[in-house]
């Protein structure tokens, strides 16, 4: 196993390499059970331009980081994506969750794909494309995953603006008669 860094060292290693591009990092320690063992979550904001290198740097810490999922939400003028990684699994109490937030401007919400580094990210990137309307550059299979093909094109269900699904909503309680 690679040498295990403490959370502070991890954040420092990111900060040394990307300096100002990493903003408001924070380390959360949660306790659970009677023995009060700690769970560590690291949160950090990353600029879109260096996102791919951040993932490459993360691969140096752990050869195969586990990408759980990418969550995304519409902040009005920008779209925020949160990539949830977790590293150092395999040893008891040692896993650390690392959540990287990337902000995409709404006019052209594009981001590079990371499927060449982590092939497991394909489905979550496809889902972001169809749910938030972002464009993942270089995605190997550009196809809809969860929404059917006859779903109208320009509508993105998680958007809160005019591209939202307002027109499609059906309330199942309307009694037919």
């Amino acid at each position, binding site marked *: 196993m690679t040498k295990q860094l403490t959370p502070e060292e991890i954040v420092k290693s990111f900060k040394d390499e990307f300096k100002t591009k990493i903003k408001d990092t924070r380390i959360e320690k949660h306790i659970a059970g009677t023995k009060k063992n700690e769970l560590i979550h690291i949160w950090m904001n990353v600029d879109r331009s260096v996102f791919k290198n951040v993932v490459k740097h993360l691969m140096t810490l752990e050869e195969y980081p586990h990408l759980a999922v990418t969550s995304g939400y519409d902040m009005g003028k920008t779209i925020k994506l949160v990539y949830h990684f977790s590293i150092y699994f395999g040893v008891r109490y040692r896993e650390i969750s690392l959540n990287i937030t990337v902000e995409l401007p709404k006019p052209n919400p594009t981001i590079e794909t990371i499927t060449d580094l982590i092939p497991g990210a394909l*489905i979550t990137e496809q889902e972001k494309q169809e749910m938030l309307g972002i464009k993942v550059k270089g995605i190997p299979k550009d196809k809809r995953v969860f929404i059917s093909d006859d779903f109208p094109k320009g509508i993105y269900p998680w958007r809160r603006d005019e591209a939202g699904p307002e027109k499609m909503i059906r309330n199942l309680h309307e009694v037919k008669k």
Partner: protein
Amino acid sequence: MNPEATTKTTYRLPIGPIHPALKEPVAFEFEIDGERIVDVDVSLGHIHRSIEWAGMRRNPIQNLYLAERICGICSYCHPMAFALAVERAAGIEVPERADYLRVIQAELERICSHLLWAGVAAHEIGFDSVLFLTWQIREKALDLTEYLTGNRVTKAITMIGGVRRDITKDMHPMIHETMNYFKDNFEKLRHVYLDDKTFKMRSQGVGILTKEDALKLCACGPTTRASGIKKDVRLDQPYFAFGDLDFDYVTPDVLTGEVNGDVYDRIIVRLLEVKQSIELIEQCLDQMPKGDIVSEPKIAKLLATLKKAKGEGIGRMEAPRGEVFHYVKLDGNEYPYCWKVRAPTYSNILPWMPMLRGEQIADIPIVAASTDPCMSCTNRVAIVDTDKKYELNKEELHRLSVEKTRRLMK
């Protein structure tokens, strides 16, 4: 068309999305070369009920019961991971007794889910008597769930900040009696599943997922542990009271001493996990501290604090099929601003490609079922041929699978 020009083309085999006896609809698209599968393409979304979108229009208490109906079999893990995420976002502390009660419910659900899967796997190979035997044992687990939570399947016992029902002293005899019933029958189940010649023939060397593939595709749960990777959220990042209990990773070499990541190893890992869950429940019962079971009993007050809460949190939990992941962002109004759900099967779909490549058509049911997918389907197969089109439905596909068993038995 001169004969030399015709190269051998592969058939496209669409396995229709419609609804086999048990599983949810998902559509496969196989490239078949003769009997061998060349490539697999999966399209999901036939059960997309827009839960995350609906969750952003309801308050967190209502979301608990929305989260519970994401998957009927592991209907405890989703609301619990959601509750963990909201507690971490809003900074709510959970009393220690509630942590232990949550572990008991989690392990009881793991027993129910693994027994259900074992029965279905046997049914896929054509072993209905083993399905009935396994589900007969599972009925006892459902009785215990009903006794503790009031409903056989949807437990409705999670609450943000704790648990809704306590396990008092006079409930302990029923739990111990059920656990002993499982212990006596565990040997019978292990004997039927692991020593049976038919199971060995149909599952050894079939649907192999190499360790490297599993790591690259971020697979999770028993599917990765069967390939020898030590990845288990209960041990890596112990939530609830898993940090206080002593247990270890379950990998096939614990029992057989070697790991080859095929369907047989997945059966081993799941059966060993049932055994481990029984011990965990008993450890919890006698280590459970006194104390109250929820941090804020009055729901109206809890709703008020959640309304003012701001922040984001993630909830990770080890469901019977793998890691369940919830991300919640609260920003100070009644409804959560963002709620992302990731069911374990979400990341076990890509590993199907390396597993199914090179297998025969008759092996599709057992290999697809071996990752215990919460949405796999092998019901209707329409083999598109150049001139004639004929349909194989689950009956024939199942018969194909059973015939293969008989052919191997000769």
